[in-house]
């Protein structure tokens, strides 16, 4: 059994992992001791279970500490020992016992074509299930790109009409945590904040927590200095690629992708993220980028900033067109020539021989 000291340490780690201080850790402890572990109901629809797998690989807190001490995972199809009617019953009772307070986590997209028959669990469509569970949830979190904006199932031609959770749950606040897989610490941060304070983190216009999705990958990429200096890999394995230079030219979507992958690596392994291992970001968190823009197609920079070079004090500007100079020369020469020719002819004209007479009225 875990000692209280170990438990406090666990809470401190959890708090630290999401950027909260010792005061929060204290509150986690108190909440847990009072038996107020928040109930979490985890729904899975059109997904690969990658987000769950990603969660299983966290270490601070580890999944066991998480589900045993910090939250009450009252429904999770993958992690449940139970199945079938027993699982359904667990869902129903959890909903009843924690009405208005449980956290509903949605993983996977929800098909909408033909009334949503492409994903049915226990005889009910995904649409029915999510509407049912979300109706009495205290907080709704969509984990992963599939639940956040449609993800892989929604890729062209989207035969099932795969839709994100917020499209089904219109009018409700849904926290989107996109990524393929989503970074589990983004989820943990959101869940623990809600569990401790009852509030959700500040969200951007697409419902994503600003603490994780407030900046593009480009904006805090460790290879940014290479971008600013114009050092690019042109193809996999070339000299520049081996030197770890910027991957923009081989199609990095970092400039248009809001995510925190560059600062929170995956699997708790330092450097374990796409760019870190030498592959350009493909924009898995962004609708319209991930699974949409071809992998090696370059993107525009949304907010260009300066390179690492400087203009000199005096930089030549303005152009002189040699054609224009030539034309001007021709015109001046032509006028001069014509003028001279005209002047010669003047001598053939009669002069005014009327003396000093003045013109009449």
């Amino acid at each position: 059994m875990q000692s209280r000291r170990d438990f406090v340490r666990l809470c401190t780690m959890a708090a630290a992992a999401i950027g909260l201080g010792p005061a929060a850790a204290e509150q986690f402890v108190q909440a847990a001791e009072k038996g107020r572990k928040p109930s979490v109901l985890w729904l899975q629809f059109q997904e690969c279970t990658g987000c769950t797998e990603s969660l299983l690989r966290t270490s601070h807190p580890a999944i066991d500490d998480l589900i045993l001490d910090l939250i009450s995972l009252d429904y999770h199809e993958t992690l449940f020992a139970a199945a079938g009617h027993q699982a359904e019953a667990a869902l129903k009772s959890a909903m009843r016992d924690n009405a208005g307070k449980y956290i509903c986590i949605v993983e996977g997209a929800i098909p909408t074509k033909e009334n949503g028959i492409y994903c049915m669990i226990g005889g009910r469509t995904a649409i029915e299930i999510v509407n049912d569970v979300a109706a009495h949830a205290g907080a709704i979190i969509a984990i992963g790109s599939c639940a956040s904006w449609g993800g892989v199932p929604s890729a062209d031609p989207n035969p099932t009409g795969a839709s994100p959770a917020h499209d089904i749950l219109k009018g409700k606040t849904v926290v989107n945590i996109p990524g393929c897989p989503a970074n589990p610490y983004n989820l943990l941060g959101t869940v623990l904040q809600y569990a401790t304070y009852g509030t959700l983190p500040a969200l951007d216009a697409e419902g994503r927590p600003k603490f994780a999705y407030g900046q593009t990958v480009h904006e805090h990429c460790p290879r940014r200095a290479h971008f600013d200096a114009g050092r690019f890999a042109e193809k996999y394995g070339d000299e520049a690629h081996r030197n770890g230079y910027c991957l923009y030219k081989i199609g990095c979507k970092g400039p248009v992708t809001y995510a925190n992958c560059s600062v929170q690596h995956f699997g708790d392994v330092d450097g374990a993220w796409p760019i870190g291992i030498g592959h350009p970001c493909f924009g898995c968190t962004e609708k319209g980028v991930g699974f949409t823009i071809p992998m090696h197609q370059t993107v525009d920079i949304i907010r260009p900033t300066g390179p690492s070079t400087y203009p000199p004090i005096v930089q030549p500007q303005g152009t002189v067109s040699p054609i224009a100079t030539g034309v001007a020369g021709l015109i001046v020469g032509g006028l001069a020539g014509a003028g001279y020719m005209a002047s010669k002819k003047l001598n053939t004209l009669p002069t005014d021989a009327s003396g000093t007479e003045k013109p009449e009225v």
Partner: protein
Amino acid sequence: MVRISRRTAIKSALFGGAVAVGATTASATESVEPPADARGLLYDATLCIGCKACVTACKDANGLPADTAGPHGLWDRPDDLNAKTKNIIKLYRSGDTTSFVKRQCMHCVDPACVGACMMGALKKREYGIVSWDGSKCVGCRYCQIACPYNIPKFEWEMAGFYNPKIVKCELCRHRLAEGRDPACTEVCPRHAVIYGTREELLKEAHRRIAANPTLYQPNVYGEHDGGGTQVLYLSHVPFDKLGLPALGGESAAATTRKVQGTIYKGFVAPVALYGVLATIISRNQRRAGEEGERS
């Protein structure tokens, strides 16, 4: 015979008088003092690290697009101030000597651009900030000819046809109105550029020179140059190397006022000339008429 009708004489006198009154109400003082509440910037080139946060902050605060002309179009890399860039960091390098320099409108005490502007679109407004009013500008670009620092930039490109503007730093007037400081000063990580009243900034500048005389050039650029500016510079390299021109103590606007004022003082000369000419010509015409001639 040609008669100078009374009506014509009165009309011409009235016209001349009206213009004269109009001209004399704008009496020109020879030299101009900075306004009492003059605010400006102090840029210390010895502190600047060339991070260009001020360039980006200025673009954000003023809603300016990035200048992505250039080989890849990936960076905001203006070569100089232009219609998309109100503030820029340039690099001076000569052997081992380097310095960054921040260039933007100098908010002169006696601006040449204000003296140039026909319809008063460019004016010194609150705190002595020189700012541009598009409703009055005709786009004659005389301000570009006049400015010794080559600051006002015109929107030459197509997007500017419908409303080509004169673009230059206006000390973030819109932010000052909300009680915030200019964007560049707010974001500079080393306080290389700071904001304050001109008096305070001059005092601070001189204090720094006195505290570190071997580091700095002995004078503060903008204290007297070209009649004085409200954006002041401290530097360890000579100012002309940084592209800050050597100007005398008198502003070009004052010189122009002197020359034009000498000719047109009170508009007396043109009116008098008109009177003399009208008299002579009338008399000549009368004589010509009497002698049976007419032009």
